Every structure is written in C-alpha cells, then in structure tokens.
C-alpha cells in the first residue's frame, strides 16, 4: 500500500500518556478518508504522523513500502503531501496569490509558473478576485479556500486536512469541503479529520478513533 502505518504509537514525552496507540493503517492512492472521533481522540496527532510532521515514538510510517526516516521526511513532505489546517495557517501579510503559490515554490517551481498555477486554483475555488489581497484581510472562509488552493495547486499524492471547516458556518463548510473533495486533482487522495457527518459522508472511508486507538475502518 502507498501509505502505511505499522504499529504506530505516539506520546509527546515519556511522562505523558499515549495519544495514539498501536495503529495499523493503510491508505491507497486517490483514496478519500475521513478521520472521526471525539476531541482528544488523537485525530490531529494521527494526521501529523501520516503527513510526516511528527515522527512516531513507536512503529513506522511506510511510503510505497519503504519506511520513512527522519532525515528524508522533509523531502517526502514536499513531494507527497499538502496541508489544510483548521486555523487556516497562512502568511497573513502576503497576498492570497503568494500564499497559494507557496507549496509549488517549495517544490522547486519557478515563481512565474507557480503564480500562474496558483491563480487558476484560486479561480477554481472561487476566490480568484481576491488574489492580490493580503491574507490578513480575508474572511475565515476565504482564507480557508486560499489554503485549499495552495494544496490543490501542488497536486500532491495526498492532501491532509485537519478539521478544515471547524471554524466555518454551515454554508461555507459545504463550499469549502466541496472545493477540497470534488475539486482535487485526479489521483490525489484526501485524508480529512472532521467532526462533520456531512463531510464524512462525502468520503469513501471513515476511520473512527477513540482514546488514540482505531475502532472502525483501519484496514484498506
């Protein structure tokens, strides 16, 4: 399987409790996966382990069957993953277009190319007219769409979204999740941590976490 967790457990320090425990999981290319569970169940930690932001205390993350080492994690993050965060992390003093170009630039694209692709993605998610506006002047929904455009523009293997609609109203939630799920490039998988049943229903597979352990949907 392209993205595999094998016996993954994690805690943030030896004196703290395990946040995720003994997780075995396989995710295929292009798969739509919803991670669900109550607050504190370990969704964000699991997502950051899947996206190579956090190296698990125990177990291994495998990409195409090869374990990912700490040394190579940065390069794999650039090439395989793109992120959409709950708090719409962005460079707030830079324009929407510059934010949307960021992941492409990190992949080695020329600035002009990155801007052209990012401008198209901003149009597709409905904020093309805000391209030159500083990110700090955008509403929450607009900023989240910019972040989605940033992820889509890079056409990664997987987009990891951590409660991307958590701070949005219902109508914006539907628009943002549609932009993320139906607007994704062909072959790009989406792994989305969410509390929203409606968003989860759009995904092909739902993984439920309770107290850091997978109770439903861990296998492929």
């Amino acid at each position: 399987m392209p993205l595999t967790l094998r016996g993954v457990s994690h805690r943030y320090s030896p004196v703290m409790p395990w946040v995720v425990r003994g997780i075995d999981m396989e995710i295929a290319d292009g798969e739509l996966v919803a991670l669900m569970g109550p607050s504190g169940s370990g969704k964000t930690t699991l997502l950051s382990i899947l996206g190579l932001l956090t190296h698990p205390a125990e177990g291994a993350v495998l990409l195409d069957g090869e374990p990912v080492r700490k040394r190579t994690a940065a390069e794999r993050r650039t090439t395989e993953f793109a992120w959409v965060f709950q708090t719409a992390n962005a460079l707030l003093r830079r324009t929407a277009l510059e934010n949307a170009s960021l992941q492409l630039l990190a992949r080695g694209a020329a600035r002009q190319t990155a801007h052209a692709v990012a401008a198209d993605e901003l149009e597709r998610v409905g904020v093309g007219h805000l391209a030159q506006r500083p990110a700090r002047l955008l509403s929450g929904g607009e900023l989240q769409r910019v972040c989605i455009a940033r992820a889509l523009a890079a056409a990664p293997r997987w987009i990891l979204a951590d409660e991307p609609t958590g701070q949005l109203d219902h109508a914006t939630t539907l628009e943002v999740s549609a932009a993320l799920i139906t607007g994704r490039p062909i072959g790009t998988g989406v792994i989305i941590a969410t509390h929203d049943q409606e968003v989860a229903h759009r995904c092909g597979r739902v993984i439920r976490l309770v107290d850091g352990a997978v109770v439903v949907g861990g296998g492929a």
Partner: protein
Amino acid sequence: MTWRLAALIEEGLANLRASAFRSMLLLVVCAAAFGGLAYLELRQGTELTDFVRDYREGGAYVAIASVPGGGLSGGRCESLNGEPGIVGAGAWRGTGQATFPTAPGVLFQSADVTPGILRVWDTRQALGIGTGLVIGPAMAEELGLRTGLIATFVSSEPVRVSGVGDFVRRNPQAARWALSPVSPAGEFDECWVEFEPGAYEAGRETLAARFAESSADPAVRPYRRSDEFTRDPASEWASRPQKWGWIAVSGGLFGFGLVAAWFRRAEAGLYLAMGTRRAQLALMGAAESWPVVAAAWCLGFSYAVAAQSLRFTDPTLEILRHAAVTSGSAALLALALFPWGGALVARGSIATLLKDR
C-alpha cells in the same frame, strides 16, 4: 524537489517588504545599536585625542635641566635638536630687568634664549629667529607692540620686534618677558627639552648624563609632575568597555531577532510543513534580515559621525577606523546570527509550531 535558491531569496525579500512596520522597527533598533556603539567609540576616542593633544601642548613631555646657580652649556642643549625622540631643545638665561620709556616704572624680565627654546615654549607658530626681539603677549599688550615694530629700551639700543610668542601653555611667566635670541655658546640657566611621548621617560632619565661632562651636578625635573591621579590615555583606550561591545550588541540584537521570530513561529511551521528545511529557512532569514542590518549599520554609523562632528569635534581617521571596526564587527556578527533566529525557534515539533498563533 525543493526550493530554488532564487525563489528562497525572493521569498525572504517578499517577507521583508510585506511587513513594513516590522522591517522599520528592526532597522531602527539595529541602527540605534550600531550607531550607539560607534558613537561611544567616537566620543571616547575624540575625547582622549583632545586630552592627549592638550596634555602634550601643556608640556607633558617636557623636561628641564638646570644647574644650581646656572652654568649649563647652551651648545650642548642646542645640539640635542635633531636627535631621535627629541622634538625640540633650547636654553635660556636671565639678563635682568628692563624698562621702557612708554611705560615708566614698569619692570619686564629680559632674557637671552637659544633659538630652540622658542620651539619648545610656543608650539603653535614658528617664531622667526634673528636678531630681533621676541616678546610675550602680556608685554606686547601693555606696551602696544607687535611684530615689525621697534621696541625702545630705557638703557639700550632700540630693537625690532621679530615675534610675539604665545607661551601660556608652556611657560606662562614668559608672557611678560623680552627674549633676545643669541648664539648657544656660553652658559645658560636652564635647558628645556621636549621629547616624543614614547621617548620621554628614557630621555628624561638620561638627560642629566648629557650635561655631566660640561656642567657640575645637573638636575633634571619634569615640567609637569605626574602622580597617581594623572590620566593614562593609552590604558584608558585599551580598557574601554565598548571595545568588546560588539559582542554584547550583536547578542542583544540576536535576542531581539529571536523574540521577533518567536512571534512568527507559526509561519516557520508552515514553511517546514511544506518540506522547507531549516537551513533553507535560515537562508530565507538571511535574505530578509541582511538588507536591514546593512542599511542599519550605514544609517547608525553615519548618524554617530554626524552627531560627534556637530556636537563636539571632527574625529580623526584613526578614531573613525576604530568606530567602524567596532560597530562593523557588531553588524557582521548580527548578519551571521540573524538568519538562524527563525530556524532556532522552529526547532521541535512542527505540529506544535502550527498551533501557535
């Protein structure tokens, strides 16, 4: 697949432009720090230079050789001129008192001097050495005399005044003296010798020996006596606290940079989440901070020089060089340290950085 170098530099510059307030604040803080350091150097350097000049003009390196009752060889004294470490040497002997018909009853001291003594007593001007009379400023004022006029003594021939000396720093009592330049042959009361600063101590100690052959029991005394309260400009300059201030200044600025980077840790987390390496983050930081630090040094240094020149005196090239080296060292160290602020703050969990807003 990773950032292109040009894109990293552009990204840093774009971040610099995007936050004008932050960049200006950094510019002002750095300029104040570099300028302050440069100003301290300029101020102390110029103050010590002025002090050294005053100290020297005040006769700090002048020694006086004399023999009780007179009888010092004028030829021997004059022969010291031109020797290594000696600025000038000359002798004088008192010839009594003189009066002038234009100021009856007022007594002036008259003296014979060898030509070299005029260089020791008046360092600011080259007094003509000829047959004419050289008089002190007080005497010139009281009698209404100036260079070129004829002075008429009550009991001797009129003499042309060849110069009015300014002896206030080296021999203030000569302000009311009438000095007649004479041949150094014969015996004189005192021999005044000015040494180069570095040759003073050794020269003073051996001065008595130079007259031992021709004069009995020559004594040598310093013109200005030094004691434990006498300033030592060389050691003051060597132990100036701001000499190592460049380390403290750049360290302080780096601390400021760390605080600024701390408030931007979510941005650093975002870059790292996209696969940017910490070294690339440092390079981006360099592109963002170097123009500001360089501009701040130029601004701060120029301001320090202008402030010193306007408020006090123009610094010498040597002092300027010291100020530039000290403040420039601070700027160079800041250039080296600043880029690592973001990378240092971004150590640890990327997920945690992303949560910090």
